[in-house]
């Protein structure tokens, strides 16, 4: 796993230096929130509607990050260099998924308070711990599927299209669970203090199954 850490550190340093991905994701999320305000014609939303809007906002911003995940490797020969090195190939999966997870976390640090400020009716304070748990599990799923789908897409011709096209249907169960888990937390009257366990279980199951699956098949995506 040292390889994975080295790769991760490289990607993080690259992102910090160039600031390509995360600021774009944040901006995109903020604009999406504004669009939702106008699209729904609401000043404040709560409950399941709010949870849905938040989930969709994070999802669309995530798509931007997913599209860019392997582009540097593809354009600058990073794949070949990696394949020549005598390391476990799944280290790239772990590193990229971890990078994507951290990007999403950085996105949410800004986007969720923005959402709380601009669109959310009830206060963001009480539901925050539960929300963090739900988003953490969701980000895990987004990271795994995003890495998998991005690795497939980067070798195709319609790169930017294939990623979301494959990823969105695959992510639907995770998104259902995320929105349903967050819904009661953001309710106006008596918000729940903890997210419903059934949805957390489904999210966790999703994460585990696809993480194991990605681990099993990723090697085949890297072969030349």
């Amino acid at each position, binding site marked *: 796993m040292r390889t994975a850490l080295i790769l991760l550190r490289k990607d993080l340093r690259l992102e910090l230096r160039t600031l390509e991905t995360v600021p774009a994701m944040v901006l995109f999320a903020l604009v999406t929130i504004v669009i939702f305000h106008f699209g729904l014609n609401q000043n404040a939303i709560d409950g399941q509607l709010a949870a849905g809007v938040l989930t969709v906002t994070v999802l669309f911003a995530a798509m931007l990050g997913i599209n860019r995940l392997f582009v540097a490797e593809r354009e600058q020969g990073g794949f070949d260099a990696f394949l020549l090195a005598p390391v476990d190939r799944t280290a790239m999966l772990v590193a990229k998924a971890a990078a994507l997870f951290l990007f999403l976390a950085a996105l949410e640090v800004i986007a969720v308070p923005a959402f709380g400020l601009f669109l959310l009716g009830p206060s963001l304070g009480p539901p925050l711990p539960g929300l963090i748990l739900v988003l953490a599990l969701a980000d895990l799923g987004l990271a795994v599927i995003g890495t*998998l789908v991005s690795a*497939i897409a980067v*070798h*195709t*011709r*319609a790169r930017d299209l*294939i990623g979301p*096209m*494959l990823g969105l*249907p*695959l992510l*639907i*169960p*995770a998104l*259902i*669970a995320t929105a*349903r888990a967050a819904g009661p937390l953001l309710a106006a009257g008596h918000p729940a203090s903890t997210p419903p366990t*059934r*949805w957390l279980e*489904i999210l966790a*199951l*999703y994460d585990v*199954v*696809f993480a194991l*699956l*990605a681990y099993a*098949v990723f090697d*085949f*995506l890297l*072969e030349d």
Partner: protein
Amino acid sequence: MPSTTYGKGLRGLALATLITMTAALVLVFFYAPLDQTQGFVQKIFYVHVPLAIISLVGFVFGGVLAIGYLRTGDRKWDMRSYVAIHMGLIFGIGGLITGSIWAKASWGHWWVWNEPTLVSFLIVLLLFATYQPLRFSIEDPERQSRYASVFAIVGGAFVPLNYIAVQAATAYVHPRVLTLTSANLPPSMGLTFVVSLLAFALLYVTLWKYEMAAKNARSQVRRLRRTLLGDDLARPAGRSAAPL
């Protein structure tokens, strides 16, 4: 090298399909009793549910065959996986259309969100509809087979997960007739359903073999032409989503 023939046993299989399909139709219209709540409309159940189930099984089958490709590298497995998913998609579209007709007949809407089988089915179809565009966008044939196999495996695992999520998410307003585990199904209906399911399963296998035989024949012709005439004289194959 021994060649694989898919035509062998096809005639018997087709005959078995014909007999079972006829038996199923007879049972549906002459034997199965009329449903108390839904009436005659319930008869759609005997085509809609088998189509949906066999379609999903077909996708999982495609995933399993894809594992075969990744393990052996033999393109034969990729072709089998491709056809399995292709057939699953066709059966799935049939299931979706009949499901829509059934929804319109029962509840007056061409689509309902509170039937989890139907909804999770739509999602699975949306996923596997991307299979062919994905293949088409990868030019290198070996990479195409490899990536398609990875997708098929991930998709196959997706089917049960998706069903669980959608099941949990869907509120039931109407009584659910489609549960297979429910005790609502009287034994005569149960028998009819099983025979219908068997008929569609046989139909799937027959059509799968038929398609495989046709594809196999075409690829043999192409290969023959290339060996006999030399690569330059052979007409270049058009780009396709199907594996050679």
